[in-house]
């Protein structure tokens, strides 16, 4: 025998569920007709406290296939690791801008930067960054070298950079740029020097 209060409880829940279904059914058509405003799916980074400083970021330009330095003013925290993350986020802000010279998918994010041993930095990208990245030798190289060069130019002492995606190793960024090996800063600097010429 089922207690009466349980029967009442279930009955009330069923009535509520039925009522909500009817309500959703009624408003569904209306919602379809409402113009959808442009949404920003990017996670909101916590506010950064610290002094505003000048930094050099290396920006990729798809139209001519080059990487060029650009001076920006960024609010940088005191900690070295936090500074590294903020510097790279400022580069991503350029890439995710409406008039980006090297567009990345909305929601692309640097999850974290780890400075784990003298000279080694690990950049952890989110899944959207890699999964939605355009595929191609040049377009992937532009992304990777601009990140490495921006990091090494602003955080002294970094000699090697390793990429992770969602904390895991990955073979390539989007089918081309190798993420399985470490990026050595001198080699990336040579690549950037080549990428500053359009010829």
């Amino acid at each position, binding site marked *: *025998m089922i*207690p*009466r209060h349980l029967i009442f409880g279930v009955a009330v829940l069923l009535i509520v569920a039925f009522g909500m279904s009817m309500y959703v059914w009624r408003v569904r058509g209306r919602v379809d007709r409402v113009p959808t405003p442009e949404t920003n799916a990017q996670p909101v980074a916590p506010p950064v406290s610290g002094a505003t400083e000048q930094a050099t970021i290396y920006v990729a330009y*798809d139209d001519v*296939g080059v990487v060029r330095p650009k001076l920006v003013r960024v609010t940088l925290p005191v900690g070295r690791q936090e500074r590294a993350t903020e510097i790279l986020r400022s580069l991503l802000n350029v890439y995710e801008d409406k008039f980006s010279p090297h567009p990345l998918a909305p929601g692309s994010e640097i999850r974290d930067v780890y400075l784990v041993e003298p000279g080694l930095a690990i950049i952890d990208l989110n899944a959207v960054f890699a999964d939605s990245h*355009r*595929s*191609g*030798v*040049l*377009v992937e*190289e532009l992304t*990777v070298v601009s990140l490495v060069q921006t990091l090494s130019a602003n955080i002294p002492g970094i000699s090697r950079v390793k990429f992770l995606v969602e904390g895991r190793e990955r*073979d*390539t960024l*989007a*089918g*081309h*740029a*190798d993420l*399985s*090996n*470490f*990026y*050595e800063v001198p*080699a*990336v600097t*040579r*690549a950037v020097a*080549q*990428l500053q*010429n*359009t*010829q």
Partner: protein
Amino acid sequence: MRWSKSRRLGAPASGRLPRERLVPAAIPLLAFMTAVLLASTLLLYSSPEEKRISIYSNAANYSLPVLDRNGDEYIGLLELFEPLGAVSAKANGNHWKFRYYDVESEFTAGQTRVRIHGSDFDLPASFLLENGRGLVPLSSLGTLMPRILGGPVTFNQNSRRLFVGNVAVHFTAQVSKTTPPKLVMNFTAPVNPMIATEPGQLRMAFNHEAVVAPGSQGLTFDSKIIPSASFQESNGSAALVITATVPLMATFANNGRTIVVEPVPQVAAQVQSPPSVPRPPNNFAPPLAAGAPIRRPYFAVVDPSHGGEERGASLTAQLAEKDVTLAFGRRLRQELETRGLATLLLRDSDTTLSLDQRASLTNSAHAAIYICLHAASEGEGVRVYTAIVPSDTENRGPFLSWDAAQGAFQLLSQSAGTGLVVELQSKQIRARSLITPLRPLNNITTAALAVEVSPPSDDISELNSPAYQQFIAGAIAAGLADIREKLETRP
């Protein structure tokens, strides 16, 4: 209703549980229900392989899922006939009318007796009707389909492969008496199998072709290197597994009607003369014998990047990078060979090759140069890349670190890249020389370049234009021919 004091303290008089006992009693019940839900979810998602049936016909070759109902295998009749011709179906209560061209059939849910074109026919199990979808037992197809189609049907129920009409593709296989031996297979129609190599065997999976066994499932050959092959069929596909004592590779000829399986080039050389070089350990490239004369069966290895399951960049909605690189690779091989430069094309069909396999095959071929082909929708002209080689990896004795195997050849690669860019620019092709972190360039033990081709205009589909591909391939081949002497001199 009110609870009396005695009932609250004592045992329930009428079988009801008091509130204090109800909550503890409900917890195990809820836990049990959650466990059942979780277990069923896990079972649902961990099902090993979806059952499928493949249908081969002159109209189309296709594959459909098979459903398990009441211990029997079933298939949707409408989906089965849809690719074969004009079909329609109408459900009316328990009755389901199906029409294929002018052949009408009537089915009743839960009944085995059906009426097809005015004649009665018994199914081996009941017809099922699910949300207007008519399901027939799989075991009935061999007799049911000929009545509806009016033509012969061959159904292999164990392998779930169904042949409508005379569509089977037959093949012969024989090993040539040459050194090294070659297994030559001739098919009655073009085939494009997925090829995978494992130690001791090469497997060709025919997922879309109506290839049937050549008399018996097992084939034996009078060869110590390629002693046997077996034909296997299961779950709607067929595979030919070739066993061998050496690594094998397959090449296609005669527009896909002939497949030649032979030992990979380095192994082929060893078959001719006993091996004198120790096998490299894992993760190390073959040792270099500096200054030693190199036997070069090929001048160039051309590697159309991506392939098979790996599509590469989606250049347009229809155009995949893997298809452009393959077409481009074939033209480059042709251009090189017309200049007298023997060329090995690493893949000549839509097959999957890992980066390590590409590097191993290239290093085994001992070619003067490796050219990896890519295509991009962005940019313009051609970009010629050499490798960024890690510097902190260690070589062990004569064996090179796998990740830095290209190290000793970097200068040669850069010199070749520069020469190629100059040649391309002389033909008014916009070209740049760059370094890039792109595998397998850094695993190659010879001059190694990657070439990324962009469309000549905003129209990306021009990447697939034969004229444009021929023009670029001709320019690259001319550039390589110019630096041939430099490339053939090992540092």
